[in-house]
């Protein structure tokens, strides 16, 4: 589904990614871990199409399409979803109206009729239950005055509504208390299925305890230095990133 080959990228002239390779298949859950500044969020931004980042080398194919050629909106319409680390507050735009617009833009792109009001409300109701989000939040402006947990829950709600093929969760666990983390993780788990891939970017083991990823990758200095199964995350939790860095510098010395 997603094929990242040798991606190099820079922002404002500073090289951040130094050749990332990653293959993600439908139904898989991949976790990307790594210390601060390793390039995790840069990778998410590049995949979503943020304009400040420049891809200097490599390719990204999503469902056979050259994704780097697509605008952010077309990537979303093709089935990509990014849950933001810091969801943006947009005063004056109602959440419900926004999601309806987004959904219908996507449907239009895929040659479908816009959803009528009744079907839309039915879908909203169903997905609201799924991710345990309160209706009152959705009548308000996008994320305006939401708590950290409410913002993250709203991200997962949007994911539920937009039904992406590939979802990237960028530090969705950051800033969440234990209860909020459980609710968000349960929401994500309910959205897992054999057709949908998920990439989880995180610092911590605790979200992975809930999600049980199929693969764990460790990003250091803009490169994936180790890939493994969920046990790798446990090892990291125990030993920290330093042991990998040590191994890495040893390897580079050789």
């Amino acid at each position, binding site marked *: 589904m997603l094929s990242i080959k040798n991606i190099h990228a820079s922002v404002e002239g500073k090289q951040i990614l130094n050749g990332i390779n990653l293959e993600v298949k439908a139904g898989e859950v991949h976790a990307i871990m790594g210390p601060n500044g390793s390039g995790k969020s840069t990778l998410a931004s590049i995949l979503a199409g943020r304009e400040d980042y420049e891809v200097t080398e490599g390719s990204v194919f999503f469902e056979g399409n050259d994704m780097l050629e697509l605008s952010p*909106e077309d990537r979303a319409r093709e089935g990509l979803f990014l849950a933001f680390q810091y969801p*943006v507050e947009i005063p004056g735009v109602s959440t419900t109206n926004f999601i309806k*617009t*987004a959904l219908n*833009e996507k449907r239009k792109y895929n040659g479908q009729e816009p959803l009528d009001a009744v079907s839309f409300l039915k879908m909203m109701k169903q997905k609201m239950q799924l991710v345990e989000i309160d209706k009152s939040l959705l009548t308000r402006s996008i994320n305006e005055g939401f708590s950290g947990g409410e913002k993250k829950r709203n991200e997962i709600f949007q994911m539920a509504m937009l039904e992406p093929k590939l979802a990237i969760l960028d530090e969705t666990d950051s800033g969440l208390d234990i209860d909020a983390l459980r609710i968000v993780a349960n929401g994500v788990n309910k959205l897992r299925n054999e057709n949908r891939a998920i990439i989880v970017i995180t610092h911590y083991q605790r979200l992975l305890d809930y999600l049980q990823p199929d693969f764990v990758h460790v990003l250091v200095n803009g490169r994936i230095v180790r890939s493994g199964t969920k046990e790798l995350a446990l090892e990291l939790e125990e030993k920290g990133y330093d042991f990998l860095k040590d191994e890495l510098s040893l390897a580079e010395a050789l």
Partner: protein
Amino acid sequence: MDTIKTDYLKDKFNELQSSSADDVLSNIREEGFKNFNKVGLPAPHNEEWRLTGISNLFKKEYHLSELENTITIADIDTARLPGYENANELIFINGKFIPELSTIRSSENDCIVLPLEEAIKTEYKNLIDEHLNKSYRFIKDGIHALNTSFMHGGVFIYINKNKVLQHPFYLYHFADARNNHLLSQPRSLVYIDENAKGQLTEYYTTIGAMDSFTNEVMEIVVNTNAIAEYYKIQNDVANASQVTTTHIRQIGKSYTHAVTVSLNGGMIRNNMNVIMEKEGNEAHLYGLYLLKRKTHVDNHTLVDNTKPNCFSNEFYKGILDDNASGVFNGKIFVRQDAQKTNAYQSNKNILLSDDATINTKPQLEIFADDVKCSHGCTIGQLDEEALFYLRTRGISKELAQSMLLEAFAEDIVMQIKHEPLRKYVEELIVERLSIN
């Protein structure tokens, strides 16, 4: 190079003075023209007019059409605003109030609407004497004096004590610029008596390809416990320029709510003055300017607190594209007696093009020591982060942009309390922003 032409105005003035016999108005005009000749048109070195060069508009001669009445009912129909079926519709053609084409739905028990020339002969003579042209005390410039010099064919609106009018006033200003450049100078005096409520909406339409210049003065007097609601919608053609002065005097403890929406036109200057003449007055002034091409809009506001415990809030927002330019100048006076004044002011702008400009200037002059005043202004572009967020959900850049701009404008549009009008303005804005 063309020079400024005002000589012809003298003949027009003499013509008007000799044709009308009425002493009260004639004296006011005489005084006005004396002032006009003394100070002339506002020049660029006049600080109040530094950024709005109105004198250039007088490099051509204007027709001051008196009696020709070429606007038809069909023309009027094209300009009617939603909700007109329930409104008191006042038609002005080339600056003159035309009773025959106007429709007053309120009963005479509720309100009186008369041409100024007639009203001055009725029991309202003293009231008019007392209140007409008090705006002169605050506005000494030549453009105001010019309106006063030609004060003729204006309207007097009196809302009776204890009457909350069910029929809003719609004032349509038509300028017939089909054959000549046209100068219209509407003048009105509105008196809202104790415990009464009146709502006024002004709308401007130029017909024809020649230039029109509207130089309007409206004075609104608000008595004790009365409410004045005022809306101005400027959506005229690019060859229509305007100076509008809305001079509101709150002579009793009363309430004002005003919204000015400017969407299209040539060079526009809006003077919005609120004079707090009694303790405990409250005023809310809002403005929205959505400008493109070469349109210039200058909103000059004045809130003059002369007595204690008055509250005022000003909130103006603008979106400027192309070569459009805007000015916001917010003056707040707090006189020595005006302790416990609360006066707030905010002006926010989005510039969509490199060639658009905005000048924003708060001007607070405070002579009392126990007051709360604040002002703030912002100038920026669209929030890139918000734009990206919307796009990552599959919303096109263009649509995301208009959603954000609509949201920005909505803060002001929602202040239009008259629903048919609010919906109308909302539609105009959606239409405008979706083209971009």
